[in-house]
């Protein structure tokens, strides 16, 4: 097996692993990084459950090879809450607004929404729905999720 040395920073901490070039960033984070909050629900770039921030931008980690993230800063859902164990404003808004049920799609939404609101802090309802359209959910019908994004936007206004 041809393994490559991979070094990146995840949630501000250095992560060093050895993996084949074909190992996706999602699998690397889950296995070598021990961070199982990033979930795999399709592995072909449609559902968004695997969303992480790569150098601050939201990307599908199932469509990246770990080796491609060499030297980059990756933020996973685990890295969004403050170190004292409280919730980020986006996470708090999801909690308040019943924005999750089974929770499997939730990390992908939380990361995507965090990135979305950073670029678009005062979105219209239509912009919210468009901004959410890259993440799939089967439990909530998106109702609580849309409310959560509205609330998170209002809270940081």
């Amino acid at each position, binding site marked *: 097996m041809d393994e490559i040395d991979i070094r990146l920073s995840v949630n501000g901490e250095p992560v060093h692993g050895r993996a084949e070039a074909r190992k996706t960033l999602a699998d690397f984070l889950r296995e070598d990084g021990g961070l199982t909050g990033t979930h795999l629900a399709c592995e072909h770039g*449609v*559902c968004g459950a695997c969303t992480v921030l790569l150098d601050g931008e939201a990307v599908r980690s199932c469509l990246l090879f770990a080796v491609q993230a060499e030297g980059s800063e990756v933020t996973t859902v685990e890295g969004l809450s403050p170190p004292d164990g409280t919730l980020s404003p986006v996470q708090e808004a999801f909690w308040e607004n019943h924005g999750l049920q089974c929770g499997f799609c939730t990390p992908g939404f939380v990361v995507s929404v965090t990135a979305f609101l950073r670029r678009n802090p005062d979105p219209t309802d239509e912009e919210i729905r468009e901004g959410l359209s890259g993440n799939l959910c*089967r439990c909530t019908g998106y109702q609580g999720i849309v409310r959560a994004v509205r609330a998170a936007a209002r809270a940081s206004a």
Partner: protein
Amino acid sequence: MTESPQRAAPSAPAAPATGATGAPSAIGRLVGQRVRRKEDPRLLTGHGRYLDDVVLPGMLHAHFLRSDVARARITRIDTTAARAAEGVVAVLTAADLNPHLVGDMHGTLSPDNPGPLLPLAEHDVRHVGDPVALIVASNRYLAEDAAELVEVEYETLPPVVDMEQALSSDDIVVHAELSDNLCSRMEEPIDDELRRIFDTAPYVITETVLQHRYLPVPMETRGVIAVWDRHTGQLEIRISTQSPHDVRTTAGRITGVPEHQIRVIMGDVGGGFGQKAYVARDEQVVILAAHKLGRAVKWVEDRHENLVAATHSRTERVTVTLAADESGQLLGAHIDHLDDAGAYPVMGSGGAGAFVVMMFSGPYRLPKLAYRTTSVYTNTCTRAPYRGPWQAETLAREQVMDVLAHRIGIDPVELRRRNVVHRSELPYTMPGGMPIAEVSPEETLDQAMTMIDHPGFRVEQARALDTGRCLGLGIGLYIEPQPGMGPYGSEPAQIRMQPDGHVAVYLGSGSHGQGLETTTAQIVAEHLGIEPEDVSVHQGDTDATPYAFGTGGSRSGPILGAAVRQTALVAREKILAIAAHLLEASPDDLDIDGGVIAVAGTPAISVSLAQVAMTAYLNPAGLPPGMDAGLDFSSRYQAPPFMFSNACHACTVEVDPVTGTVTILRYVVSEDCGVMINPNIVEGQIDGGVVQGIGGVLYEHFVYDGDGNPLTTTFLDYLLPTAAEVPEIEHGHIETPAMTPGGYKGVGEGGAIGAPAAVVNAVADALRALGVESLSQPLGPARIVAAIEAAR
């Protein structure tokens, strides 16, 4: 009385969430409130524990090699190269694994399933996705590499892919062991009286309603880790499931390991919707493989497999003949229902034909019903229950009611008003013999029509038509049963108060998004005068939890809720008896508030729950004479054979007559699930079901070609709705309490029952002005355009 050591006081009350629609329906301090969920902090921060998150020492990874043809003889299979591949520990075919099976693989609840079922395909394959070999290797990447090295040769045979063809012809029989493709049939023919009605009624219409193939698609695919330790004789299974105890029973049956030596652990589950309510063939293969190999073996299904080879649903046809008098009152009906069981259906025929028939009259008075319901095998994927598995009855009934209304020349709302069972007529016995009571279909119809402004919409619809815009209104009015027979009828709850006054609850359920930790904690905390944070809820470990059949059939609210409530009340009674003894007061004078039991009106005379618990466990001499020590409680609630909830779904749409695209303008639900434990959770369950229904009608369609090859094998082609495709869903609540303790009724499946009817009817209503008389799913834009063109 001994001094109790300092314990953390039960925490201060948490503010109930106000984020969802409307004011809290205030039943109690906690029950009825929009309490934030206990599950959420760990799930929001990425600290849930789903199946694929679990890593065990020495764990191997499994991957299935599956048939890529729908029907064929296996003429050669050679695993030599695969077995020699890097990282491979075993490559198992039917010859290697099937002899290891010692019991029946059919579901625990379907002992009469006539179809064959083996672990791996033996001499032939019967659908694309049929598992032919299991590769076990040190990681999934290597297992997939090895799969490509397995050499399989097929002699292909023509498959039967269409259920009507499977029904009408014996030329191609799916299972060579059987003489035809009939999986099940139930029939009550038209009798003389109904024949006379059909011959003489002022209105007799016949409509065929179709429903296409679509799937549950939970966001977490299926997965299992099985570990067999021959030294301890213990079989340990971790699995993404809705029914942990059934997994244990099934695992014991197929491996021969006695159940008391099997432990099943269910962690967080990423959705199920029925797909994970039974132990799948694939999961059983992995358990057998682990048992045979004496290793820990993990299998996580990928999305391609989940779409092609997990479970399919909804493929049905209902031909309805409906007779009515001059005013549109229903006189009688005949339904001919057909569903596609696939090659290896589960739960009997996999569908719910009997329920389709039983529920067909729904909320209306229907004096006579005759029927035939049939399930047939085809060379397609397994049919299994999916949220509201019998919902074709609501689809068919509600579609045909609209057709009847237009034939008569009255508004479909008016026709429903003329036929709906009034509260004063309850209990009403449906034509199949099932009595319905404690339901409110008329009230929900009224509320939904007020919410959606039915009269105002008709004006708007007419005005829009003048400018060439097609608007439509559709209704789905239904009654939803919660079965309480057989294993579904009993639900346990165990409550233990710890010496420090906090409480642990043990349930047999398999929560997969319904928030059972939260609703359970609300009920217990309500009755014990504490906060939800003071209650821990445990489910999913069969070593620790009492036997139950899992989560499904919308049972958790009514049956589990009742079990928890009744157990909590027993606990409260004993706690108050001990406190009364300690305080030398009467139990009737005592209240529990904030974890402190005091004489009402005299807060100085009080004792804490911790003190009561310490007495019960560590100083039984301080208990009332004759009372047993301890504060553990266990009871089972036995549900009535059926309970019913009900709702009215109504939506308005605009259909673009050029492109056929459908925009949902408004969607309202007026629902009655009795007493709500947590309105957020009730509404959330409805919302999820509604969007699955919208998805099914407008977007989701699993397609096979004529050779049984699946064409929609990824999310690029099997389309799930996103937030951009769905409307804001508006809720109205009617509350008709159940006769059961607490008055809770089920709500989990209703959205998926009412929504398809409401959406199809709305589109049909919009297109009627263009001359479209009859419309069936799926309703993607190209098919809508085809219907418009055909009507020209």
